[in-house]
């Protein structure tokens, strides 16, 4: 699946998007896998209360399932308007 990062999450990880091969069945499991990769991921995902997630461009929760998901995006709370 494609994993996208926005705003300071993108800056901390150093990438706007990447292709991730994962067996994770939920967003929370995917986060655990990413955290285990490198320090920059652990840092970006250190405080989940500061993060939001969208699966296939729909806002959702960290316990959301990933079956069939093509795109998962992580970002801070939005500041539009």
């Amino acid at each position, binding site marked *: 699946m494609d994993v996208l990062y926005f705003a300071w999450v993108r800056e901390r990880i150093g990438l706007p998007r990447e292709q991730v091969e994962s067996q994770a069945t939920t967003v929370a499991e995917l986060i655990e896998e990413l955290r285990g990769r490198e320090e920059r991921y652990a840092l970006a995902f250190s405080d989940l209360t500061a993060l939001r997630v969208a699966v296939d*461009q729909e806002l959702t929760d960290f316990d959301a399932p990933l079956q069939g998901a093509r795109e998962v995006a992580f970002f801070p709370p939005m500041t*539009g*308007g």
Partner: protein
Amino acid sequence: MRVLVQEAPFDLAEETARFAKGEGGSGAIVTFTGVVRDNGAGTLSAMEIEHYPGMTEKALCEIAEQAMARFELQDALVIHRYGRLVPGEQIMMVASAARHRRSAFEAAEFLMDYLKSRAPFWKREITAEGEAWVAAKDEDEAALERW
């Protein structure tokens, strides 16, 4: 209903006139425009707005559709810019057309409340001292409870 996500400036007078021409049955048209405000210290040189192409359009359409149904609008318009903007520039506008004033005002507030914390935009302030992401405010999240 019209939703635009664009880098280019928009002409407020032109957009408002076009919107107002659309519907004969509307007795009330409300427009709101957001403008890049200088920070307290007067040192803001620019505001950079990042967004999530694809999701942004989808989220704004869903919010506008909800407003259309909930307030029985005749029409709704949302324009939101991204990219680098300087103080005084227009960031976004919403417009609502309803049969009566109360619905039109409430719909404009609903659109604003939702697009502030449910549309994937992130603002970054560029000042003489450096750059910083604008943090979301608890009151913006709390504003959704009203609806």
